[in-house]
């Protein structure tokens, strides 16, 4: 296999999967189904975008699922209290940002590995959501809020618009701004970054805050789709987000990853799950398939990197 082909392998797999599903199921290539894939994957996709930057710095954020839950809950409570939709969404995003910021502070100020810090805050944020809500979902949300999760704009799901905007923004940050450049540098060689005079702690904190903001937004999308603020929402989503980044070529050692790769990774997982539903493959098997795809994708990517070295 040529190197070029290997580099585009994730993209190629996505296309092949798409074509195969179109052939295998008459329902796949319908506007309804595709819109539902977009809606289903929007939550993971949004989270995975933030996770991409975090992973590029050589970090990890295990708390994004809990952030999603807490932010969705907080936003829903604001809506319940009668604030307009825009404010509600803003509240969710700000709660997410705050949680991410706190992760960043703990990581940089205490010097504890991100894995450990976010493993801790995974429990803390979830616990706070349960305490605040008393474990009960928030239901009394104005009907207009469903527009985010279920509505269309110019015939295209609103969530897809939001995803595109976020993806472009994160791509621009990564490839065209100082923050992105520093994220790559920190992930590739932290000591060299410090020695080059880069304010490393500041940028690490910023990266977790951005990741938190995107998880907060994902929380509002989830809340809008369910029309509830669930304190338990988002459990286990962190693994989906990490999987998307990794399938898309991100390296858990840091210094590698891209928005396009992550989106491809997330859509591969979304299509697999959608295809399995359409083809009546049981939920149990879906887990086996997706798990295997993660291992396969990373293996192929490793082989490519080893050859390139």
């Amino acid at each position, binding site marked *: 296999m040529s190197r070029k082909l290997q580099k585009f392998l994730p993209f190629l797999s996505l296309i092949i999967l798409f074509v195969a599903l179109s052939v295998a199921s008459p329902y796949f290539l319908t506007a309804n189904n595709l819109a539902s894939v977009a809606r289903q994957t929007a939550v993971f996709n949004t989270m995975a975008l933030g996770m991409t930057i975090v992973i590029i710095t050589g970090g990890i954020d295990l708390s994004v699922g809990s952030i999603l839950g807490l932010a969705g809950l907080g936003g829903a409570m604001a809506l319940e209290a009668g604030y307009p939709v825009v404010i509600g969404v803003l509240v969710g995003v700000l709660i997410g940002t705050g949680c991410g910021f706190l992760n960043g502070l703990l990581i940089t100020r205490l010097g504890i590995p991100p894995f450990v810090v976010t493993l801790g805050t995974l429990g803390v944020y979830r616990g706070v959501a349960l305490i605040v809500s008393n474990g009960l979902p928030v239901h009394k949300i104005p009907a207009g809020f469903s527009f985010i999760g279920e509505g269309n704009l110019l015939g295209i799901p609103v969530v897809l618009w939001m995803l595109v905007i976020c993806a472009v923004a994160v791509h621009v940050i990564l490839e*065209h701004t*100082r923050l992105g450049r520093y994220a*790559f540098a920190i992930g*590739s060689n932290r*000591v*060299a*970054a410090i*020695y*080059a005079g880069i304010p490393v702690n500041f940028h690490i904190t910023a990266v977790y805050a951005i990741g938190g903001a995107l998880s907060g937004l994902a929380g509002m999308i989830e809340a809008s789709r369910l029309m509830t603020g669930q304190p338990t929402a988002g459990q286990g989503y962190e693994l989906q987000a990490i999987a998307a980044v990794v399938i898309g070529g991100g390296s858990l050692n840091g210094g590698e990853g891209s928005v396009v790769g992550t989106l491809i990774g997330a859509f591969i997982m979304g299509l697999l799950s959608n295809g399995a539903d359409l083809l009546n493959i049981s939920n149990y098997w879906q887990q086996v398939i997706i798990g295997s795809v993660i291992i396969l994708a990373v293996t192929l990517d490793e082989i490519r990197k080893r050859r390139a070295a």
Partner: protein
Amino acid sequence: MPLLELTNIQKRFGGVTALRDGNLSVSAGEVHLLLGENGAGKSTLMKNVAGIVERDSGRMLWNGSEVFLRTPSQAAAMGIAMVNQESLLAPHLSVAENIFLGREDRTGPGRFGWVDRRVIASKARDLITQYGFPLDPESPVSRLSPAGRQMVEICRAIHHGSSLLIFDEPTSSLSDTETEQVFRIVRDLKARGMGIIYITHRMNELRAIGDAVTVLRDGETAHTGRLAEIGTDRLIQHMVGREVAQIYEREHLEPGEVLLEVRDLCVQRSNLQGISLTLRRGEITGMAGLIGAGRTELCRAIFGVDTPDSGEVMVQGKPARIRSPRDAVSAGIALVTEDRQISGLALRLPIGYNVTLANVERISRMGFLDLKEESRASSELGKRMSLKSSSPSQLAGTLSGGNQQKVVIAKWLFRQSSIFLFDEPTRGIDIGAKAEVFELMGELARNGAAILMVSSELTELQHVADRVVVMRQGRISGVLPRGCSQEQMMKLAVMEPTMTGSAA
């Protein structure tokens, strides 16, 4: 009959010929030096001997009969072992456990995956005392000095009766006393009748140890013969294909204003005591001293990595508050560290990213990066430094040591730093690249930079530096003018400092 005889060994990797004509023969009880620049084919030739790489053509005779080795274990079974240059040890395991790592089964009770620490430790102790290594078999490898690790590597290699040992630059990260220890071991092994192939970059250690020598250049055997019959200058000429004098050539200038002044600097943690030093425009200040004398620590303190307990740093006559590398970089100070892969370069990122790393502001336009400018600037710097690379998007990790060093220097050029601290700038790079690094340092000085060059290569200091500051046990023990002898430097590096003359 020689123990090992290689004739006309050839090896190609894809389209690249790594070895065109490798010849070498080593007898029992002989130390055969293998010299050559990086990429000359030394490693390929030795990997062929150690069964790591298969040759395309040529002959390898082992005790007179032709052999073809396909795996390292085949080589080991025949009695050929290689001592690795970079420590491949498990730091958390003990010396004994490392010596027998992967071969626990041979220690007897190690069957069924059971490892008896006491048995391993006593076996290791036997081996260690037999060769007189100053090692404690039960101490973890992480506590050992680089020389200690090297000894563990040697133990690993010899513990099952090898008759040929290959050393790949064993002393490249060792101090002089540690180097002497390794030499003693090599001589001892030689006296026991082992054949030894010894790869080195350090020209000043050849005579202390070698019997015969082979020089490779561009994959061909440039010279092979007895060491006593050839001068060092001729050897270098064989290695680089040019005259020795040209390597260090540089015009010395009248030094200008003081750019950096260090006054009475003390750092308890790294045992720096009362360091005073000035660096002037246009001047290359050499710094000699033994490993552990505090030279690296001084660079770290000036650069804000370690915070001084007392003392002052003045930049261009004004007191500078340097609390972090960031402050130092803003003050125009650049540090080229001795371990560029650990603290100098982001290996998995493109050259261009590395060049602009310390000055991304310079390619920022209203918050966005001007990637065209980055590519243009790094190409231009690359050209100026004769960097051998395909494009600014090539990953830094794929460059040779000398070219990686050039990228590190390019980073500070792009930052427009004016005070350069070079810590062992030529470590691990070949002579051709060394000459280019010196040329660059000369150019920097000409353009008004102040340069501190820490080096353990006294020859370098002697030829390149305008004056040499010598450190000993955390203090400055003396300052020598240009043209001082290596003996003078060594004397100051080793002897008790005098009461006077500690200011540099």
